[in-house]
């Protein structure tokens, strides 16, 4: 897995690529926590994720819980088919905010 960071509007976008598994998810977690720690609104771009396991999902859940605690925005964007299958199977699509694109989102109003 590797990742790229970009800024889109009010969001810091962490784009993950490849397999987000037990071996690689700590890297994803580190980035998510880093930007939330800097009080950024964070979107995780999963468009190029080929595989995500429960450890990878846990990193997203942790980000989601931390953002809620600090009244920051957190969500997923451009979720790839394999990642979406995992999220839907576990009904996590009901928990994590999922967006098609960032440009179509309402401006950040909380905080």
């Amino acid at each position, binding site marked *: 897995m590797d990742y790229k960071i970009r800024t889109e509007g009010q969001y810091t976008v962490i784009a993950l690529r490849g397999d987000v*598994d*037990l071996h690689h998810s700590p890297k994803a*977690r580190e980035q998510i926590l880093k930007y939330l720690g800097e009080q950024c609104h964070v979107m995780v771009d999963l468009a190029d994720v080929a595989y995500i*396991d*429960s*450890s990878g*999902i*846990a*990193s*997203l*859940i*942790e*980000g*989601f*819980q931390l953002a809620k605690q600090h009244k920051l925005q957190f969500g997923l964007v451009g979720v790839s088919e394999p990642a979406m299958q995992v999220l839907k*199977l*576990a*009904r*996590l699509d*009901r*928990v994590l905010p999922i967006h098609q694109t960032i440009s179509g989102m309402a401006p950040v109003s909380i905080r």
Partner: protein
Amino acid sequence: MDTARITSGKSVNSIKPADLPAPPQAAIQIVHACSDDSTDSKKLARLAASDMVITAEVLRVANSPFFGYGYGKKIQSIPRAVTVMGQRTLRNLVLCIAVRDAIKQDSIPGFDINAYWEDSLRRAVCARLLGRDVRLDHDECFTAGLLQDFGLLVMFFLQPDKAAMWPEMRRKNPMSRYQMEKRVFGNTHDKVGRMLAKEWGLPAELGDAISNHHGADGDAPDETHTRLCRLAYCVDWMAAVFTADDKSETLTRCRDAITRTFGLAPGVVEKHLDNVPSLVEEAATALGLGVGNQLKFADVMQEANLKLASENLSYQELTRQLEVTLEERDRLAAELNREIALAQEIQKSLLPHPDTPGQYITGINLPARELSGDFYDFFTLPDGRMYFNLGDVSGKGINAALLMAKTSSLFRCLGKTVHSPGKLLQQINRELCETTTRGMFVAVTAGLYDPANGTVRLVNAGNPPALLIGRNGTHKAYKAESPPLGIDTDTAFPEYEFNLSDDGLYLFSDGITEGFIAKDETLGITGLLTLILEVGARPAQQRLAAIVDRIRRSPEPLRDDTTILLVEKPHDNGARTD
């Protein structure tokens, strides 16, 4: 003869002949005349008479105890010197004086020129000693030794701002010094020496020794060069034994160079080196050069041996430390393995015993590592109804195993009083939400089966669909309606309700459907359905074992904990009859 500074701070990688220091003219004329076979002693006397200073100096040096050319009778004139010494020896002696006077004592500010001459004299003395052994003209060897590194002095003369580098350069062995010259000056003493030999019109053999006593990278010259030239290389290492920081290494390389070049017997080098300090003092007196206190070879040896001993000691110490560290690592690894084995034992005790399946419920858990993040359990309530569950904690390893232990314990404890799987999971979820960290969650499928009327109440929170499979191959999937536990306290856990009848209800973790059955091929839901139908005739326990085996036998390593549970009414012979 005076030598004015020709240039200051001149780049030494583009030296022109005009930049070079000039030797005393009369001296160089005598050198040239001596090299000419047609020159007679009268001509030499005429030349010498043109510069009385040089004449007096030549005679003084020739009569010195070190050179002692008069053999007890003082030489008082140049023609007499020619008769006693021969033209060639006279030429070499004059050259020594010429090179000594080419750069004045104080012309490089901050540069210890006496130290330079001391090193040059050491090379000259070593060359004279070694020259005798290898049957070369030892006087010519002395001159070559004195001249061979003159290019270095010229480089400092042209770039006096580099004078501060000299002490460091002096402490290096010849090879390292050569590299340092390249870095500091962008040039080397042999290349500058070559220009000098040409410009001063030095005799061919001396020119070769000065110009070529190093190979391309400061290494030994090859066999195409004269023996004098190759001797000059060995002499460099001999002299450096007294000045280099690493005396042990320098001495070893000095012995190697001399053995390789001249095949001298062991011990010869050491015998010569022992004589070097006193001879340097004598030669310095003869040439009127000042040298400091000479380090004795015994002291050099002591320093070299100390270095060897300390290196040997640190090597032994390092080896010992490594051994201790490895022992400590093995001890800690064994301790950790013991701890994990104990945790494994405790964890297994939390799962139903694999050899005693329930009458209605059977399960198998295959951990991907020593400890599992998956679990299953079942127990009967006093009224005969049976609770069962199958859970999958996010991640793997010790942290997943601990959360697994907590969740399955909560299930067993609270399940005794809460007789609705939806409400039970709600309570466990709230408990977990209060305490879980790092986003960890638990997918759980839980059900309550009443064997009296066949009713099943089932909740799927984040697991793959539970499959109800009929004997005729019909099937129904009960997908997750809720997310896993531990994420959101307000999660609702709706229940499915259906009759088990004679069907089999299969619960499984994603380790089953995502388990590899071939390279790049996972079992998947369809594969699982097909497999269940294939093994349908076998007793329940064997059916589950066959499914898990399919994944276990794959050449791909198990990437996830793999767990499957079956709820089914018992048949007469323990297997399906159709």
